[in-house]
């Protein structure tokens, strides 16, 4: 800490943080050091350029220039160390030859004594006083009075008469022209647009009417064609019907004639054939034939058989009795 001898309030250059600050009292400086110790690490790389060893001050003609190479030669290092050793040795030698106060004799002690006329108290403690100063609270600044400069110069008047600045009628003409022109242009465009549309519409309408007309005509002709075709078809169909019917009638007549002819000889033929097949018979005859004759024949057969048997017996037994044939045999 370096202080000047005269004042208590002084510039204090703090080496630890290398800043030049104003400390009014020791307390404040101690506080400053306290906070520095806490933030020393961060602050260490900030340096006051005035006290930086690397900054060269004064003229540089004969100054030692730091070599640019980072690694100095070993020879250089040795030389520098030798120089340093020699400087230390020289200093030590000089100190040896400096006359000093001889040592105190036995029983005596050297002390410092003030020899001035007036004794002064020497102490490390610097007498300090705190002085404060405070401004009065500000009063509201009153409004500055209106500054009215003193009147100086001459009063002059002027008046603009009508027609002097500009002539309205002449000036307004271009403006009016533009306004009216634009309006009329716009309205002309609109009217033209409407007219165009109306024209188009009228043309469309005329076309539509013609089209409708022609369409109706076409449809009418189509209808007519269709009706005629239908009529023709119907007539042709009718004719065909008629022809068919006629053919049918002719066939029917032919069939009728043929049938009549065929059937004319049918009845007698039928009867003849039936009669020939024996379908008409006399029932009495039939009955006699079916019932009576078989019985008769059977009976005859029986009789004849009996007769035969008898004859055989007779033949076999010739000397049978003639009495055997004494029965009611009308035939004998």
């Amino acid at each position, binding site marked *: 800490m370096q202080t000047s001898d005269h004042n208590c309030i002084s510039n204090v250059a703090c080496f630890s943080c290398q800043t030049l600050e104003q400390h009014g009292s020791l307390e404040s400086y101690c506080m400053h050091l306290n906070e520095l110790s806490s933030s020393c690490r961060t602050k260490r790389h900030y340096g006051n350029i005035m006290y930086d060893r690397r900054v060269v001050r004064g003229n540089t003609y004969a100054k030692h220039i730091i070599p640019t190479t980072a690694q100095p030669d070993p020879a250089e290092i040795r030389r520098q160390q030798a120089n340093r050793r020699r400087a230390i040795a020289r200093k030590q030698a000089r100190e040896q030859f400096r006359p000093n106060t001889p040592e105190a004799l036995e029983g005596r002690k050297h002390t410092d004594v003030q020899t001035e006329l007036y004794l002064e108290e020497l102490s490390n403690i610097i007498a300090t006083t705190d002085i404060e100063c405070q401004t009065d609270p500000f009063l509201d600044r009153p409004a500055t009075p209106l500054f009215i400069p003193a009147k100086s110069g001459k009063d002059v008047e002027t008046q603009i008469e009508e027609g002097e600045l500009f002539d309205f009628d002449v000036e307004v003409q271009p403006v009016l022209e533009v306004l009216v022109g634009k309006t009329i242009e716009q309205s002309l465009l609109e009217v033209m*647009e409407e007219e165009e549309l109306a024209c188009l519409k009228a043309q469309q309408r005329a076309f539509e009417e*013609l089209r409708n007309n022609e369409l*109706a*005509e076409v*449809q*009418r002709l189509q*209808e*007519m064609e269709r009706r005629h075709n239908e009529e023709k078809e119907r007539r042709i169909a009718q004719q065909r019907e008629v022809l068919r019917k006629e053919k049918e009638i002719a066939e029917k007549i032919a069939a009728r004639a043929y049938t009549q002819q065929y059937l004319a000889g049918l009845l007698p033929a039928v009867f003849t054939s039936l009669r020939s097949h024996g379908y008409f018979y006399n029932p009495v005859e039939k009955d006699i034939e079916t019932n009576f004759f078989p019985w008769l024949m059977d009976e005859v057969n029986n009789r004849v058989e009996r007769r035969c048997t008898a004859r055989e017996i007779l033949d076999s037994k010739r000397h049978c009795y003639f009495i055997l044939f004494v029965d009611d045999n009308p035939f004998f």
Partner: protein
Amino acid sequence: MAGALTDPTRAPVAFGRRAVPQLFGELQRAGAAARLRALTSLCDLVHEPERLYQAVTGGFLKQLKVLFRDEDPSVRAKTCELLHLLTSHSIGRQAVLASSLLPPLCQLLDDSSFSCRRNVHRVLNRLALLPAGAEALLSLVPKLMLKLTKEEDEEVQLLLLSTLTHCSRLDALPGLASDGVSLLGRKLSHRSSNIRREAAAAMMALSVPMDGKRQVCEDAEVLPVLIGLLRDKDVEVQANAAGVIMSTVIITTGKQRCLDLDVLPVLLGLLSEKHGDDDKEEMKKRRKALIMYVLRALTSLAEAPNGRRLLLEQLPLVEKKAEAAEEDQDIRRATQTAIQVITWTP
């Protein structure tokens, strides 16, 4: 920017080519009110074909899909209005059809906000003018028929009817399948002549296929109403009614029914009607349609024996129309055909 100061309902518009992309970018980023402003500005810009082309080809239509589901009904309505303007050009229509915007659009048909629904109908109407569009809308026809019964407002009904007419011109079968004839028959006696005209036009489109003709004959109320409409004050209503009759009498049942309902004197009356201001071009054009339809109807009716008999008596009247005094080629041709058919003998 002047736009922000002068008109608080519109977003400021960038200059030149950046206008449309920047507004679409704002649509993506911004909050609800800013979206409405950007949409309003876009609607104004899109009137011009160049900007429309830019909007359509820049691929911005996908963003509109998101806007359809926005909570604010005015935003939805404005989006539909923007679409409506886009479809006024053919590229716009094609782009809308190609970009699959139709399904979300159709969901908006049931939207709670009236203006949104009306704008959706406007878009569908414009789309139906294109044949490809009408084809795409064919699947919607049953739903539109349902809407017809429910919607009260006249403008929306008109739009619906004209969309249905265009779709049915392409293919009338879906319309017929969803009972179109009886629905339209009820609309024919509406008090507004616009609706009557559109309903009659739709009926005319529906009666082109055979099935439609048969249905018109079968429905007992439709024909008398149509014949009543022939005496209507509005020429277009008369023309459309005559058109329906013209297509109905092509089939035999139609002929019989119409002759039973004594339609011939009415038609002949229409033919010889003279207007005080006949030299007006427009009136002539409108009456031309009426006269042509009437002539065709008479031609078809003349194919029936009773019809022919009646018309033979009125032949001089018809011949007058075929005179060289009549400038219009088509009318002359039609009258000649009519005379041919009337004087034909089997």
